[in-house]
C-alpha cells in the first residue's frame, strides 16, 4: 500500500465539497458521531444529509465568512492511503491552490456539466501546470442535471483537450460523475453505461504516478549532525536527512555541496539499523569515509548522478502570498529544505495572468496571489535543481526577515 496525495479544484458551486464528502462517505471514512453532527446541521426535509457539510470549517471561518488556506482529509481503501488537500476558493485562491498543489501527485479539476470549461477551469489548469502536478483528472460533475448525456461530456472533453494541449498537460483522465448521487464514484453507474473507463475511486486507487524524483538524482539535504557524547562513539559523525531523489548505497562516491569536497559513504543507518542502500523519501543517517566539514544545509550528492546547479544567481517563479507587496531590492530568507540563506530580489521580469497565461513585463511590484518571474541573488552559493527536474530540489519559500512570515512559494527555474 502506498500514499496518493491529491488536491481538488473547483469553485463552491462545482460540487467540490460534495465530492470530498462523497469519497469519505463511500469509503466509510465518516463515522457515526461525525454523521450525527452533520445530520443535525443538514436540516433537510427528506432526511438526506448534506455531504458538503463534512468539509465545513471552523467557527471562526463560519462567523467571519473566511476560509483557512488548506485543510487535509484522509481516507484509505485496501489499496491506498489518500491524503486530500482541500483548498477552499474565494479571494486567496491562487495562494491556497499553490500550497495544496505543492505536495500533490494529482489534481481533480471539477467541471459543472451544465457550464463546461469556464475561466476558473483554465485558471486551475494553469496553476497545475506551473506546479507540474503529475496527473490531472477532469471530473465532469452534475451529470444528473444534464440527463447523463454522453454528448455533453464529449463536448467538454474536447474543449478541455485544447486547454491541456496549450499548457502541456499530458497525463489527463476524463471521468463523468454525479457526486451528489454517487454516480461513478465507487461503482460504475448504470446511468452512465456509455462510459467505458473506471469510476473515480477505482481510478485513484490504481493510477500510476510518474515522479521526477525517482531516478539518478540522489541528494541528501543535511538537517542535523548526530555526534553522540558517549563511549565508543568518539569518532561518530552521522549526517541526518531525507533522500530527495534516487538512491544511495554504501560505498557510493559522493560530493558535499557547496564545498565540492569528495568522499565516500561508509555507512547508512535507518532507524538505528545499518542498511546497504536507501531510496527517495527515506529519512536516514549516513557516515562518510573522510572527516570533512559538513553542517546543516549542506547537500550530499551522489557523484555518478545528475548534479544540482550551484549558484548565487537564481531564476524563480514566485507565487506571492503576503498582503504586503513584493518590492524589488528587498531582502528575504530563501529556505530550500534544510538550507536557509539571505536573498535579495533583484528584478521582477514578468507577471503571469493566471486566467490567460499572458505575461506583463517589468511590473513594479507583485501583490498577494500574483505569480511573477524574478531574479534572486543569494548571500552564498545554493545547490538546487530546476523544479521541473526535481520538485524537492527546486521547491523553496521566501521568508520575510522582519515578520518571519512565509511570503512566497519559489519555483526555481
Amino acid at each position, binding site marked *: 500500500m502506498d500514499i496518493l496525495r491529491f488536491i481538488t479544484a473547483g469553485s463552491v458551486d462545482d460540487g467540490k465539497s460534495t465530492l470530498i464528502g462523497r469519497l469519505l462517505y463511500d469509503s466509510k471514512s465518516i463515522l457515526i458521531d461525525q454523521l450525527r453532527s452533520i445530520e443535525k446541521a443538514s436540516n433537510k426535509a427528506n432526511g438526506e444529509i448534506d455531504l458538503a457539510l463534512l468539509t465545513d470549517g471552523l*467557527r471562526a471561518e463560519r462567523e467571519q465568512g473566511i476560509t483557512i488556506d488548506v485543510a*487535509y482529509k484522509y481516507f484509505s481503501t485496501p489499496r491506498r492511503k489518500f491524503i486530500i488537500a482541500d483548498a477552499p476558493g474565494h479571494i486567496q485562491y491562487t495562494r491556497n491552490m499553490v500550497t495544496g498543489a505543492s505536495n500533490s501527485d494529482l489534481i481533480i479539476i471539477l467541471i459543472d456539466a451544465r457550464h463546461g470549461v469556464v475561466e476558473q477551469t483554465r485558471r486551475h489548469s494553469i496553476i497545475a501546470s506551473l506546479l507540474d502536478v503529475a496527473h490531472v483528472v477532469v471530473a465532469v460533475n452534475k451529470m444528473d442535471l444534464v440527463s447523463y448525456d454522453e454528448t455533453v461530456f464529449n463536448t467538454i472533453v474536447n474543449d478541455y483537450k485544447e486547454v491541456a494541449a496549450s499548457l502541456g498537460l499530458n497525463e489527463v483522465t476524463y471521468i463523468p460523475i454525479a457526486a451528489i448521487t454517487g454516480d461513478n464514484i465507487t461503482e460504475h453507474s448504470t446511468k452512465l453505461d456509455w462510459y467505458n473507463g473506471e469510476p473515480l475511486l477505482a481510478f485513484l486507487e490504481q493510477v500510476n504516478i510518474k515522479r521526477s524524483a525517482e531516478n539518478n538524482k540522489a541528494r541528501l539535504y543535511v538537517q542535523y549532525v548526530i555526534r553522540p557524547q558517549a563511549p565508543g562513539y568518539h569518532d561518530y559523525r552521522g549526517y541526518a536527512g531525507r533522500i530527495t531523489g534516487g538512491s544511495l548505497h554504501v560505498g557510493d562516491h559522493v560530493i558535499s555541496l557547496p564545498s565540492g569536497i569528495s568522499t565516500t559513504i561508509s555507512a547508512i543507518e535507518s532507524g538505528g539499523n545499518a542498511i546497504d542502500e536507501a531510496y527517495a523519501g527515506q529519512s536516514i543517517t549516513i557516515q562518510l569515509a573522510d572527516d570533512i566539514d559538513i553542517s546543516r544545509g549542506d547537500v550530499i550528492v551522489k557523484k555518478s548522478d545528475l548534479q544540482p546547479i550551484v549558484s548565487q544567481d537564481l531564476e524563480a517563479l514566485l507565487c506571492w502570498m503576503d498582503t504586503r507587496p513584493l518590492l524589488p531590492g528587498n531582502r528575504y530568507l530563501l529556505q530550500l529544505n534544510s538550507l536557509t540563506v539571505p536573498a535579495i530580489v533583484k528584478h521582477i521580469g514578468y507577471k503571469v495572468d493566471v486566467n490567460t497565461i499572458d505575461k506583463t513585463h517589468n511590473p513594479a511590484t507583485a501583490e498577494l496571489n500574483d505569480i511573477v518571474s524574478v531574479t534572486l541573488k543569494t548571500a552564498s552559493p545554493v545547490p538546487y535543481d530546476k523544479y521541473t527536474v526535481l520538485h524537492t530540489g527546486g521547491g523553496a519559500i521566501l521568508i520575510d526577515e522582519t515578520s518571519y512570515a512565509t511570503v512566497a512559494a519559489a519555483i526555481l527555474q
Partner: protein
Amino acid sequence: MSNKRIDHLDLLESEAIYILREVAGQFEKQALLFSGGKDSIVLVHLALKAFRPGKFPFPLVHIDTGHNFQEALDYRDELVAAIGEKLIVRKVEDTIVAKNLTEPRGKFASRNALQTYTLLDTINEFGFDACIGGARRDEEKARAKERVFSIRDEFGQWNPKLQRPELWNNYNGKIHKGENVRVFPISNWTELDVWNYIKREGIKLPSIYFSHERDVIEYDQQLVALSPFIRLDKEDVVFKCKVRYRTVGDMTCTAAIASEAFSIDDIIEEIISSNTSERGETRIDDKVSEAAMEDRKKNGYF
C-alpha cells in the same frame, strides 16, 4: 513517493523523522510533550529512530494533571529509565496552589483546561521555543486545519487566520522572542496508521489500552472508570465490565469502551469495524460545544 520498496507506514515514518530533525536543526530549546498516550509513545519511538546513537536534543515534558491512570505513570517511568532520556514533570496541582486558581467542579471535574496554565508556565520556565506533540489531523476538525509547525504567541494562542503556508518540505520555524512553535510530526497519520505502526514496530503500550476488568459507571452512554476524581451520585450504578481505553487522557475526561481486545491485532480489528471516531467515543471534554477544541487551542491548549 511510489517506491515499491517503501510502503505508506515507511513514508509516514520518514516524514515524521524529517519533521523531528527540522525541529532539532531550527530551534534552541525544544521539548517533547509526553502524556503516556499511544501517540506520544509513538513520538518517542520516532525520536529514537531520528537521533540514535545520539541523545535526544530535547527532554520529555509531562504536564501532570494529577488525574492520571496509574498504569500510564508506571509506563512513563519505565520508558524514561529504559531510554535514558531526561523527563521533566510539572504538576497542575502546583499551578493551582501557586496561582490561586479555582478547581473545576462538577461530576467529572476535569483539569484539562487548567493544564494550559501549567504548560505555558513550563514553556516560560525553561524558555522552550518548540514543543513537539502527538496531535493528528484526523482526530478533530480544528486539528485538521492546523499546520505541522503551528506558531503560538506569548499567550500560547493559535491564530487560525495567520498560519504559514507549508510548501513542499519547507517548514518555517522562525519566531520572535516570546513566541513558540507547536510541532506535530504525525499530523498526517490516522488512528489506524498509528496502530498498524505500533504493531509493525512491536511498540509496548500501557496495559489500559488492552481489555481488562474495571469498576465503571455508565454516563451519557459512555463508560467512565470509578476513581477518586469523579463524583458519584445516587443514581449512579457501579458495575464491573471488560473494558479498554481507545485514548488515554485524564481519568476524569476519558471514557472506556467495552472491549474484549487483548492484542494489537484485536484492537486493529475493532477499530476497522468501529463506526465511531476516536474522540467521539472516548472524550467527554469534546462534547461540551461543537467548537470545544477550536476554543481551547485559541487559548493556548495543545
